């Protein structure tokens, strides 16, 4: 039932708005709304019961194992939320002067510095509001850098074919064209293809390392040399930073610019789609171009740097300092981890991934890159299963829902057929991984004995498989009433 269907004319949550209806004062009649918007007319109990009920239809970290590759769905300590919701933080107006926000700014400045430290970059800006906006900022800085040197013929960004879709999309938003680089049989960038592609039009290469194939790019130093020698810059997509936290720094690998998905590696809960935060880090060359505002300090007062302080900046990405509440959560998370904790993140996320990979292999699943270590995630390919039984990766994914697990990422990266990208994260226990293996084994058996069962999954969820085609063909994007 929709909230609109609970609505009854005249019903209200009376305590939630002023007791009186003030006059419309000086607003001319012709500017006034003639019909009220069709918001639901319901009581507070209606609202609470409706959305509490809806929430129970979700799978989530707090209720389910969520091995969604590339998304790093790990447990977010509850203290992070509690700290970010302290009333002085939530109540502060963004345009309040810096001297009214020294506590907040101290936190975000320290966050900036910690991110610098773990990534090995020279400077960090917290402004981008998600990974993709970080990518935009990063590529825009690459462009600003080349442009500032008059090197304006560089109009091409190289992207491995395994890259996340945001990479090419971000490059295009910066006015670049995109050229894909092939991947070799072991999941590495094909060096020959890369060599063939670089040249005077190369603005840069965007790379995820460990890649979205779940493996560490062996030849990263060679790649670095090839790109830099061609005059391009090296962009690091930090979505998989979880795997190498405290182990190896993008800065040390030679990257010029990096974005970090705070909501992945630094564990802000994903909120059913966001908010996230996508801070960017750069080496000294690119520092003048960082997006605004930056947080300066701590000598004397913390303050936000603006256009006058940073005339070469690519500018602002949003009205304020990015997603402040997300930054606070990440700050608390990092402080509670400390240096040792960072390293443990990489160790245990890698341990869990390799264990799960081996166990699933043992259970009869085909690993896409069997000669490689898993990083914090790994890929199964169900190509053979599909051929044998007709059961596709999506069917297995849906059947997992019935067994009480969220599905892994399916059909990404696009270049591995019938793939499942599995990322257990460091916060899950061995018991949970073992239970997942058992469920996968069961599904394998079901696929062979009763493929129809798997192909028609899920059976136990609040709704059965939904008709995507109908949704796209007969667009129904808003309630039209009755």
């Amino acid at each position, binding site marked *: 039932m*929709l909230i609109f269907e609970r609505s009854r004319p005249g019903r209200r*949550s009376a305590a*939630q*708005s*002023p007791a009186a209806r003030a006059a419309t004062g*000086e607003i001319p009649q012709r*500017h006034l*709304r003639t019909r*009220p*918007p*069709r918001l639901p*007319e319901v009581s*507070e109990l209606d609202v609470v019961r409706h959305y509490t009920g809806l*929430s129970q239809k*979700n799978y*989530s970290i707090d209720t389910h194992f969520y091995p969604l590759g590339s998304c790093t769905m790990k447990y977010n300590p509850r203290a992070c939320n509690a700290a970010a919701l302290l009333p002085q933080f939530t*109540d*502060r*107006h*963004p*345009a*309040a*002067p810096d001297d*009214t926000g*020294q*506590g907040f700014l101290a936190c975000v400045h320290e966050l900036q510095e910690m991110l*610098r430290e773990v990534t090995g970059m020279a400077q960090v800006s917290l402004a981008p509001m*998600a990974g*993709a*906006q970080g990518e935009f900022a990063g590529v825009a800085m690459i462009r600003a850098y080349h442009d500032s040197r008059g090197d304006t013929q560089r109009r091409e960004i190289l992207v491995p074919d395994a890259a*996340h879709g945001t990479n090419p*999309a971000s490059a295009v938003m*910066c006015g670049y064209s995109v050229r894909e680089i092939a991947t070799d049989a072991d999941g590495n960038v094909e060096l020959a293809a890369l060599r063939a592609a670089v040249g005077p039009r190369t603005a840069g290469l965007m790379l995820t390392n460990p890649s979205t194939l779940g493996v560490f790019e062996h030849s990263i130093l060679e790649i670095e040399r090839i790109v830099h020698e061609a005059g391009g810059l090296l962009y690091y997509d930090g979505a998989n930073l979880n795997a190498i936290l405290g182990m190896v*720094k993008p800065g040390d*690998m030679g990257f010029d610019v990096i974005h970090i998905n705070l909501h992945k590696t630094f564990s802000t809960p994903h*909120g*059913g*789609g966001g908010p*996230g935060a996508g801070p960017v880090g750069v080496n000294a060359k690119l520092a003048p171009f960082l*997006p605004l505002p930056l947080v300066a300090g701590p000598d004397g007062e913390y303050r936000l740097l603006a256009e006058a302080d940073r005339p070469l900046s*690519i500018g602002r990405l949003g*009205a304020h*300092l990015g*997603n*402040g*509440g997300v930054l606070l959560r990440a700050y608390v998370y*990092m*402080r509670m981890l400390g240096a040792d904790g960072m390293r443990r993140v990489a*160790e245990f996320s*890698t*341990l869990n991934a390799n*264990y799960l990979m081996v166990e699933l292999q043992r259970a009869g699943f085909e690993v896409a890159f069997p000669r490689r270590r898993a990083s914090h995630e790994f890929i199964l390919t169900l190509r053979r299963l599909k051929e044998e039984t007709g059961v596709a990766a999506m069917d297995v994914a849906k059947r997992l829902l019935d067994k009480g697990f*969220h599905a892994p990422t399916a059909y990404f990266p696009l270049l591995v057929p019938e793939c499942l990208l599995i990322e257990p994260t460091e916060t899950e226990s061995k018991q949970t991984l073992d239970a997942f293996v058992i469920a996968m084994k069961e599904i394998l058996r079901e696929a062979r004995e009763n493929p129809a069962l798997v192909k028609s999954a899920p059976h136990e969820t609040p*709704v*059965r*498989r*939904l*008709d995507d085609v109908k949704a796209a063909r007969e667009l129904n*994007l808003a*309630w039209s009433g009755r």
Partner: protein
Amino acid sequence: MLAAIGVDSIERLFDEIPRELRTGELGGLPPALSEMAAMRLMRERAERDGAWLNFIGAGAYEHHIPAAVWQIASRGELYSAYTPYQAEASQGTLQTLYEYQSMMASLTALDVTNASLYDGASALAEAVLMAVRCHNSARRVLMPASVHPVWRRVARTLVRNQGIELVEVPYSAEGGHTDPQSLERYAGKDYAALVIPQPNFFGVIEPVDELTDWAHASGALAIAVVNPTALALLRPPGEWGGAGADIAVGDGQPLGVPLASGGPYFGFMACRRDLVRQMPGRIVGATVDTEGRPGYVLTLQAREQHIRRSKATSNICTNQGLMVTAATLHMALLGPEGLARVARACHANTLKLVSALTAIGGVTRVFGGALFHEAVLRLPVPVAPALRALRAQGILGGLDLKPDFPELGHALLVCATETKSDEDLARYADHLARIVGKRPRAAARALKPGT
């Protein structure tokens, strides 16, 4: 677990990383804090920032947020879920988004909305890009100077690399809004869109019908920039002019999202049905399951980067989902009447504040145009020191317009939402009178408690 993998140490699992790259100590990081120590630190930091009587608006507005909003939105099932790619395991999030889209469509009187963008400013940029995609040739967009100056800068950052130009349209010095006549000079040229704020950055009501009609007559789209609280009271973009605005964007913060130093907020975007395939961001659609039961899915994904890659309508992926959940709860709790009451109370309070402050000798209202819940006032003294003096009294007195609008003199943008009591307004007027060295006249005194 190591035995199962066949290695003797965790260290071995990192053996594909070149030795020379391996990090030693993370020296720059402080040692781990217990939760107790972390919370104590954060409480101390928060207390340092204190609590203020706030009269700043300027794109972010202090409103009462019903206690139920975040008590529900913080439920683990909503808070710790990912983007609803697996629809069957995400009906809570998906239905909530569908309800949000429905509410927002009705609020804007447009056909369809997406499931959020980062914030209002970046949503404006996306609207500009969208308008350019919809237009067959133009790469220029008319951007009134009465649009929030930071939003204009953000839009510029986000569109200029694609060779799109934002042409500034001046505001009327008397009215504080965009003068439809002043658009004549742009007539006949090729613009993809005209941006129309309502209310505008100065809090002034714009002649939206004339502006919308001008845009359409010029072959441009009309992009509305609106405040969602105001939409409960003001005529919605879909009803502007003869044909209605084509796209509407704004910041959803006033709908249950705390000020929080500027984020996370969310940007909303609505448009006409026929433009939907050019709209960026996620969209939820209603459908049915194999048993015919209603259900909800992410739809029109072919516009998005994870499918279309370099040909996507935008690179946006993670959006501001949880904020939208909060906004949905907020709108449901207020309902049409409640939201209208909030809007009316904001308007009434701001009028009261304006009359209390302009009762102080030398304080005047800068623009003649009708206002919604903000006003530009001119002080008889420089604004920055006056604001500092107010701060010493615990008051955030508004936004100094000097940096962005030096032509307005000692101009100050103030806002009084429904959260302000008559005592609050009187307290502000009292202190400001003292600071500018003038006695308030009758109107201001009338607000004082007990008189």
